Structure formats: C-alpha cells, structure tokens
C-alpha cells in the first residue's frame, strides 16, 4: 500500500514539473508588464527599469524559469509582486476558505448525487427516473453564479437567512457562523456537481445492471433492492470514484466563480486578482497548487480503486 503511494508520487513528478513549466509559460504569455503595474502610472522609464531588474524580469526567460524551478525545489515559491507577502503565506491564508467550501460542497454532493443516481437506476423508465434526471439535467444546465446571485437576493437580501457575503473563520467565529457563511455558496456550488454525479451514477448503474452476473443474482433469488444495492452498486462504485475525483477538480474550478459571487476570500479570488494584476509569482504559485491538488486527488482515486476493485488490487 505504502509502496504504491510512493511509486505513484514518484510517477507524478514529471506531471508536476510539466504543470510548473506550463504555469510559467502561460503567465509569460500574458501581455502587460508587471513592473509598470508596480511602479505606478506616473513612474519614469528608469524607475520601471530598476524594478524590472530587481524582479529579475530583465533576464532571459529560460533563466527565469530555471531559477524559479530551483527555488521551488528549496520550497521557495517567491514573493507576490503586489500583496507584499510571500506566495506561500498568501496562499496559506486563503486555503482554509477554499478547502472549507470544497469539502462542504463535496459532503453535500456525494450522498445526494449517488442516492439520486441509484434511485433513478432502480426505477429506470418510471416517472421517478424521469423526475430525477430532469432535475439533474437542470442542475448541469443552469449557470451557478446566476443562481448564486438570485439566491443571495432571495435568501440574504429579502429573507435575511444567511449573510450575503464574506467568510467567518471556523476557529475565530465558531462552527455556527462558519457554516452559515458557507452553506449557501456550498449548496449552489453543489447543484452542478449533483446533477453530474447523478447522471454518471445512473448510467454506470444501468451498464452494470445489463451484465450477466446481475442475471445470476436474480437466478439465485436475490431481491431487486439487494441486486441493485449490493451486486450492481459495488461494481458501479468504480465509476463513481472516478467521477468523484473529477468532481473534486470541478469544485475547485467552480469555487473560483462562487467565491466571487459571495465575496469569499479564497484561492479562487486570489488567482483571479493575481491574473488581472499580472502578479507572476502568485499566479505561478497558485497554478502549481492547483496542479498539485489534481495530482493528489488522482492518487487518492487510484488508492480507492485498490480498495473498491479486487481486479486492480491483484494485477
């Protein structure tokens, strides 16, 4: 088990490196000179040149890339150009917000999505199936930020049930305030994912229900609920785990927009600000963080496969 984790991590190194290089290239594609941004509109060319030199931006691109990669190796992610903070501390401050949002949203998505998917598969072809699938379809078709704004108008502005914006840290404000600051964005964020997961779970279940061993189970006298819940779901779980991994990545992407709607000070907001301000080190750092998260999620998915699918466990 541990050996597999280590091997997967080693295998992930080239991907991480590639991610780092791509993050770097992507950033240097962005037109606009951060030195100009920092120096301010009325700074003279000499001042801009001095800042550029201080930041090392006057060196060849390849050299910049190499020195950045070398620094990464020592754990130095660089300093933000505009925040007057190291990248690590800027990210560290905002990570709990995004993590809280993503985890809460995942906690809503997984049970609801899987349950709806199984329900639809069990009642395939009936009105229950049709209703669940229509709901799921609406979930994946409605823009989250739009529903988010409407939801704020209804629940925060009109009804006053939840705060309309801002984040209440768990440790400082206690779980009640924390939850009430996050429940609305987390739920909105889950809408798409629930629809997605329910659709994938249902189609995975239907695939499995078509297979010979399901007929074997019925021929043994196993009840329909048990056939669906035990024989079929255990097999469909492999697909569900994959989808759950995708969903976690999607949640992180979705949080970029939702954090904007609910003014949550998370990574998503940070990265958008950084991109708009041409803050290279910060963008590269956050991109790398996303890449790393992706790699970790994939390793987790692989490990869960080992647990779920005996064929993978042995071969």
């Amino acid at each position, binding site marked *: 088990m541990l*050996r*597999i984790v280590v*091997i*997967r991590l080693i*295998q992930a190194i080239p991907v991480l490196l590639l991610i780092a290089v791509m993050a770097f290239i992507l950033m240097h594609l962005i037109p606009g000179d951060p030195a100009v941004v920092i120096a301010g509109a009325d700074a003279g060319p000499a001042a801009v040149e001095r800042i550029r030199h201080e930041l090392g931006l006057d060196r060849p691109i390849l050299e910049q890339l190499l020195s950045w990669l070398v620094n990464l190796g020592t754990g130095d992610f660089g300093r933000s150009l505009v925040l007057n903070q190291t990248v690590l501390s800027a990210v560290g401050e905002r990570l709990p917000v995004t993590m809280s949002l993503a985890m809460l949203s995942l906690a809503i998505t997984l049970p609801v999505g899987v349950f709806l998917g199984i329900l639809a598969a069990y009642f395939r072809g009936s009105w229950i199936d049709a209703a669940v699938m229509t709901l799921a379809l609406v979930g994946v078709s409605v823009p989250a930020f739009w529903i988010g704004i409407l939801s704020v108008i209804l629940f925060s502005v009109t009804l006053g049930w939840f705060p309309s914006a801002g984040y209440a840290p768990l440790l400082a404000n206690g779980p009640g305030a924390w939850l009430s600051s996050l429940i609305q964005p987390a739920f909105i964020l889950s809408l798409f994912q629930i629809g997605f997961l329910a659709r994938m779970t249902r189609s995975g279940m239907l695939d499995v229900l078509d297979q010979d061993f399901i007929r074997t189970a019925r021929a043994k006298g196993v009840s329909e609920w048990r056939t669906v819940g035990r024989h079929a779901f255990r097999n469909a779980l492999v697909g569900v785990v994959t989808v759950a991994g995708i969903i976690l990545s999607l949640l992180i992407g979705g949080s970029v927009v939702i954090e904007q709607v609910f003014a949550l000070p998370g990574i998503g907001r940070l990265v958008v600000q950084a991109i708009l301000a041409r803050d290279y080190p910060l963008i590269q750092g956050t991109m790398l963080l996303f890449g790393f998260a992706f790699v970790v999620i994939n390793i987790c998915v692989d490990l869960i496969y080992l647990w779920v699918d005996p064929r993978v466990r042995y*071969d």
Partner: protein
Amino acid sequence: MTEAPIVTVRDLVKTFPVRGRPGEPKRTLRAVDRVGFDVLRGETLGLVGESGSGKSTTGRMLVGLISATSGTVELFGHHIAGGAEKGALNKVRSRLQFVFQDPQNSLNPRMRVGDAIAEPLDVAGGLSRQARNDRVQELLELVGLPRSCGDRFPHEFSGGQRQRIGIARALALRPDFIVCDEPVSSLDVSMQAQIVNLLLDLQEQLGLSYLFIAHDLAVVRNISTRVAVMYAGGIVEMAPKRDLYAAPKHPYTQALLAAVPRPVPGRARAPSVAGELPSLIDPPKGCAFHPRCPFAFDRCRIEKPRLNPVEGGHAVACHLHEAGGSGTSAL
C-alpha cells in the same frame, strides 16, 4: 513432395512482456515456443489448439501482423521474419491473406461491404474505377453472394454472409496462401458447414493453400491435408490427416480427440483429461503437458521433448515416442 514448400517456418518464437505490479520485475509470456512447419502448394495445414496454445499468434506472425521474437518465416522464397531484408513482406503481400474469426468485428461497420472487399485493391492501386467495381462483383459472386449487394453495410448481413464477405476481401488480390483464423468458430453449425465447403471449393478452383486454425479437431478434419496440434505454445504432434485421426500418438492429441462430443447417442465416453491449461508466464518444467498426462514419467518433468519424426511424415513431441523408444505399444 518434391515441390518446394511455399511457407517454411523454423524455430518461431514470440514472447510478450507482462506488466507486473509497479515495482516488481517484468515477466515474459511465452506465447509461441520454437514452432516449425511447412505448407505446400495447394494443401491445407490444420493448426489445432485450445486457448493459449499459440495457434492464433503463429498465424498472425505469418502475415506480419505480429513480429516474431526469433526464428524464421519464409514465404515464397522470401524471408519475412528473422534476419529479413527490409520490405520483403511488401514483395509477397499480395500473395498472402488472412480470414478472421469474428464476422462481427472483422468488417468496418461504417464501410460499405463493396469498399471493404476492394480495400486490398485500393491499397495496391492501379485499377480503374470500372475494373475495380467489376472485380468486386465478381468476388461477391465467387463467394455466393448477390453481385448487387456491394453497396450495403455489414449490419445488413448475417454472420455467415459476413464471413463470405471477409473471404471475398481475402481473395481480391488472387493470393496463393490464406491464413484462416478460426473462420467458423463463431458461426452456427449450419453456417459452419457452408463456409468450410466454400473454402474447399475455392481451394479447388483457385489452387489456394490454407493454414486453417481451429480449436477442435472435428472442424479441421474435412478441410485439412495435414494437421498440427499445439499445446502451450509448441507443436506437440503433426501428421497427415489420416494418420492423426486414426493413430494419434501424443497423449494430448488423444485427449483432445476424446474430448470432442460426438453426435452418437449411447456411446460410452472416455473420461476427460484432468487438470487445467498451463500458465504461459510460469509454464511447467519439462513437457508442458506432463501435469495432466496419464503417462508422464520422471523425464517428462525435467526435459522438454522435441518434435521428432516417427514415421511417414508423422512427428510427435513426446518422450514416449522418441526414436528407439517403445512408447507406441505402451499406449
């Protein structure tokens, strides 16, 4: 037997690497192990074996679909595997064809059957549109299908008809030698007989040679001139048809013959041979059949028998039948 064989295979070996768990050493699967045989003009060599015997891999190596790990394949005097000059395969390609097992996926579902049949012609080039279409119609008629059905799609045909289309495609360039890889295994009995007869008729008309691969001995009996039996990658017995069915020498051939269920009610059935097919990654030492063989003795567990001629074109790889041995009477 003065004529030179059109196909000569010697010491043909194919191994595949097997991916173990991450971090474990790589292992190899020995699919074909030192196989050798000849095919003469106008004859059919039946190649029979169960799953994992290496029969299909051997057939695919003959037409270059799989490259050999070692050994030689000589077709019409050109070496195509093992120390071959590059491009040798292209020189003999048009004389060489393959008929596949599964009529379900041996035809592209999105391609009209006329185009499928014409594919070898189109690749070879040099035919006018008219000549090409005429040839397609001729081929359709040759395999017993209506001339007009070339613009239909595969799903409009039954399994037997699709197998006829596959045969028509194989005949397009007037080949001399066709590898038939279990061409009737996935067909119903009444269709099987039609296809076997079609292949026999075509052989007579066109002077074809076949390597006919099958998984049981009954199917190849009608079509073969000689039969080779494979087990775990190697040929264990090879003989003219009459000898093999009348006097099988290898215990595995005997078991395989006994295993064919016969449509004769009330016939006492010989007990089946025990045991499972061997692993190719970790094969038994010595003779691969020894764990299942009722006659196995010490030598069989240690030394791998070679295919040795015994009499009149009959060869067997069994320590019971080695030159000077008195094994035959022991059976």
